[in-house]
C-alpha cells in the first residue's frame, strides 16, 4: 500500500431500486395502503414478497468504480447528468453505503454537498454558524476559534443577530459558504456549490478553493464549470453511465470528456432530477438553423409543479468553454406553472452569423424564479456552425483560432 494514499475506491457499485411509485414522480415511498392495494390485486405475488422482496426495477448509479487518490491531490470528477457523480460523493461522504465494493479512506473527510445544510430560517446568522458548523463535523471550540474569520469572509457582520429568513439569498449563500470554507478536514469533498451566488462571490469561492487545494489538502471536486476544473485540479475522473471512462491528468481528461460521443441522440429522454424541487424528463426534438438564426426545440415533461420555472440555454465550444449563456436571471424567461408535457422552442436570432466555424454543444438549465439553479443539463445536443465567409475572402474563420466571435471587419484609412 502506498504511504501517501488518501482514498482508494475498489469496485464500488451502487444499486438503486426504482419502484413503480417512484416513476410516478414526486412520491418516492409506498404507503402501506398502496402495498395493501397491491396485495389485493396480486395476492400470490405479495405472498411471495413476504418471503423474498418482490423483484423491482433497479439501476446501477455506479458500477465497478476503482481509482486511487493520492494525498494532496486535487481531483475533479466530471461527467454528464446521471453519470453517478453525486452518488460517488454521497458514498464517500458516508451518507449512503455502496452496494458492492469498498472505499478505503485515510483521514478525516469533510464534505460539502450543499451549502447551508441545516440552516434554520428562524435562527440568527450567529446561531446558524454554530449549528451548521457542528452539523458538518466541527466542534464548538473549532467554530468559536474560527468565528471571526467566518464572519469576515461572509461579509454579513451587520446582520449577525438577524434571523436568516430576513437575509437576501446572496447573504444567505455567503454566510453558508463561509462556514463550509472553514472546515478543516484532511480530505475535502465538494459538490457543485460554486454554482450559487453572484460572479464576485463565485470568484471568491474559487479563490478559497484554490487556497485549500494549494495547502496540500486532498480535494475531490465535482463541477460543471470546466474552467474551474482545469484551474484547480491536478487530475480528473470522467464518469460515464456510472463507470470510470477516464482517469488522467486534467487536460487529457477534459479533452477526452469533450470528445466523448455521448451527446444525446435526438428524442432520447433525459431525466431531470432535483429531489423535492424539480422532476421531469427532457428530450431534444430538433436543433438547427433558420437562416442565421439558431433554434432549439425541446420537449419537457414536468412531474411536479414549480411556479415560474426559469429556463436558460448555454452554448459551448468544442473545448467546453462557454461562449454564450442566457441566464433566466437576465433574460427573465420562464415557464408558467405547470405539470405535464410542454414543447419549448428557443431561437437565438443571428447567432450563427457570429459563430466561427466549429462544432458546438448546447445545454439547458432550470432555475427557480431566476435565482437558484435547480438542474443543469450540459452537452444536451451538438450542432455545427456552418462555414460563413463573413469576410468574403474564401477563408472561413475557425472557432478558437479566430476567437469565439466573428463579424465582418472594415478598414478605413483617413
Amino acid at each position, binding site marked *: 500500500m502506498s504511504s501517501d494514499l488518501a482514498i482508494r475506491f475498489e469496485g464500488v457499485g451502487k444499486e438503486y431500486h426504482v419502484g413503480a411509485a417512484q416513476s410516478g414522480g414526486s412520491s418516492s415511498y409506498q*404507503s402501506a395502503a398502496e402495498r395493501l392495494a397491491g396485495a389485493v390485486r396480486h395476492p400470490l405475488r405479495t405472498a411471495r414478497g413476504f418471503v423474498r422482496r418482490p423483484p423491482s426495477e433497479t439501476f446501477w448509479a455506479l458500477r465497478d468504480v476503482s481509482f486511487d487518490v493520492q494525498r494532496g491531490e486535487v481531483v475533479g470528477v466530471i461527467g454528464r447528468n446521471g453519470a453517478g457523480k453525486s452518488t460517488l460523493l454521497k458514498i464517500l461522504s458516508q*451518507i449512503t453505503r*455502496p452496494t458492492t465494493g*469498498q472505499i478505503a479512506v485515510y483521514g478525516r473527510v469533510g464534505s460539502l454537498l450543499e451549502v447551508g445544510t441545516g440552516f434554520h430560517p428562524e435562527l440568527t446568522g450567529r446561531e446558524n454558524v454554530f449549528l451548521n458548523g457542528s452539523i458538518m463535523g466541527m466542534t464548538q471550540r473549532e467554530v468559536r476559534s474560527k468565528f471571526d474569520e467566518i464572519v469576515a469572509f461572509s461579509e454579513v457582520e451587520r446582520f449577525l443577530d438577524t434571523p436568516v429568513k430576513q437575509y437576501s439569498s446572496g447573504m444567505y449563500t455567503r454566510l453558508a459558504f463561509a462556514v463550509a470554507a472553514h472546515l478543516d478536514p484532511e480530505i475535502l469533498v465538494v459538490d457543485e456549490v460554486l454554482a450559487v451566488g453572484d460572479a464576485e462571490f463565485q470568484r471568491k469561492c474559487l479563490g478559497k478553493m484554490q487556497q485549500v487545494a494549494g495547502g496540500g489538502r486532498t480535494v475531490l471536486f465535482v463541477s460543471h464549470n470546466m474552467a474551474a476544473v482545469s484551474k484547480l485540479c491536478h487530475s480528473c475522473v470522467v464518469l460515464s453511465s456510472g463507470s470510470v471512462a477516464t482517469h488522467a491528468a486534467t487536460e487529457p481528461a477534459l479533452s477526452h470528456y469533450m470528445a466523448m460521443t455521448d451527446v444525446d441522440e435526438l428524442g432520447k429522454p433525459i431525466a431531470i432530477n432535483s429531489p423535492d424541487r424539480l422532476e421531469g424528463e427532457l428530450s431534444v426534438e430538433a436543433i438547427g438553423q433558420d437562416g442565421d438564426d439558431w433554434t432549439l426545440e425541446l420537449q419537457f415533461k414536468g412531474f411536479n409543479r414549480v411556479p415560474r420555472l426559469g429556463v436558460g440555454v448555454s452554448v459551448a465550444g468544442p473545448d467546453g468553454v462557454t461562449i454564450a449563456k442566457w441566464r433566466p436571471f437576465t433574460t427573465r424567461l420562464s415557464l408558467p406553472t405547470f405539470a405535464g408535457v410542454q414543447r419549448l422552442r428557443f431561437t437565438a436570432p443571428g447567432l450563427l452569423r457570429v459563430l466561427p466555424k466549429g462544432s458546438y454543444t448546447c445545454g439547458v438549465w432550470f432555475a427557480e424564479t431566476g435565482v437558484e439553479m435547480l438542474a443543469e443539463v450540459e452537452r444536451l445536443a451538438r450542432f455545427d456552425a456552418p462555414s460563413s465567409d463573413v469576410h468574403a475572402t474564401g477563408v472561413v474563420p475557425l472557432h478558437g483560432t479566430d476567437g469565439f466571435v466573428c463579424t465582418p471587419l472594415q478598414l478605413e484609412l483617413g
Partner: protein
Amino acid sequence: MPATTSLNRPVDAIRRGDPPAPASTQPEARYLRPSTGWRAINVAELWRYRELFVIFAMRDIKVRYKQTVIGAAWALIQPIAFTVVGVMVFGRAAGVGTDGVEPAFLFYLVSQLPWMLFNTGLQTSSVSLVGAQNMLKKVFFPRLIIPVSAVMVTLIDLMVQFGLVLVVLALLPFLPGTSTFVPPLQVLLLPVAVLWTFVAALSVGLPLAALNVEYRDVRYVVPFITQFAIFAAPVFWPASRLPDAWRPLYGLLPVAGPIEFFRWCLLDTPAHPAMWAVGAISTAVCMAVGLAYFARMEDRFADIV
C-alpha cells in the same frame, strides 16, 4: 512508487513540478462498505458527535416559542387543562380515586409530568427523521442523534412544569384543609423516574421514526397510539385499582411503569415493585429492539426517505 492503480500521478506530478508528498504518518484507514444488515450502534462515533445532541435540542428549543406571545408558558397550558379534566371527570364524576393523594388535583397534576414527557417525546421523535430529510441526504452524522435530541427538547417542558409543581407544593399550606408537603425520602430517585420515562418514550419513538422513513403511515398511527395510551396508561387513575394479579402484566405497557414510579417518588403513592420490574425489563427490551432496528435501517435512510 508502489503499485497503485493511479494512472496519472507520475505524469501529472512531473508536469506541474509538484514536490513529492511529505512522508508523514499515514492516518488509519476507514472503510466504507456495503451495509451488513443487523449491526451494533457505533458508540465511538456517537461520542465523537456528542455535542450535536445538545445543539439540535437547543435549536428546537430556540425555534419552538419564537413568534409566540406567551412563549414557554405553553408548556403549562396542557397540564393545567388536563388537571382540571382529571378533577372534574375522573375525580368527581367517575370517582376512580387518587391513591389517597390529597388534594386530588395534586395527583392529576403530577401525573401529567411523566405522561407529557412520554407523549410529546414519542410524537416528536417519531416524525423527527422525516422532518430532517434534507440533512439525511446531504450530510453525515450519526442518525440516532435526531430522535434522541427530539426527546431531549421535551425535558425543557418538564422543567417548566416541574417549576409549576414546586409552586403548587409551596402554596399548599395556604389552602384550607391541607398541611405542609413533606417530600418522601424516595424523592431522591426522581431523576431515575425521569430517565426511565425518557428511555420509555425513546424505545417506542425510535423504531417508529425509522419506520416512518419508509412508511409515512406512522404519521397517522402515532396520534392513535397516544390517544389510546392516555386512557390505557395510569394518567388519570392509579394502577392500585387493578386486581393485584394483573398489575405486573400491566407493567408491559411502556408508559405505565414510569408514571407509577414517578408518582411514588414524589407523592409516596403505593409502591408496585413487581409491576416496575416488569416495566423496566420491557423498556430495556423495547429499547434494545428499537436500537437494533434503527441501526439496521440507518444505512438506508438517505436512499428511501
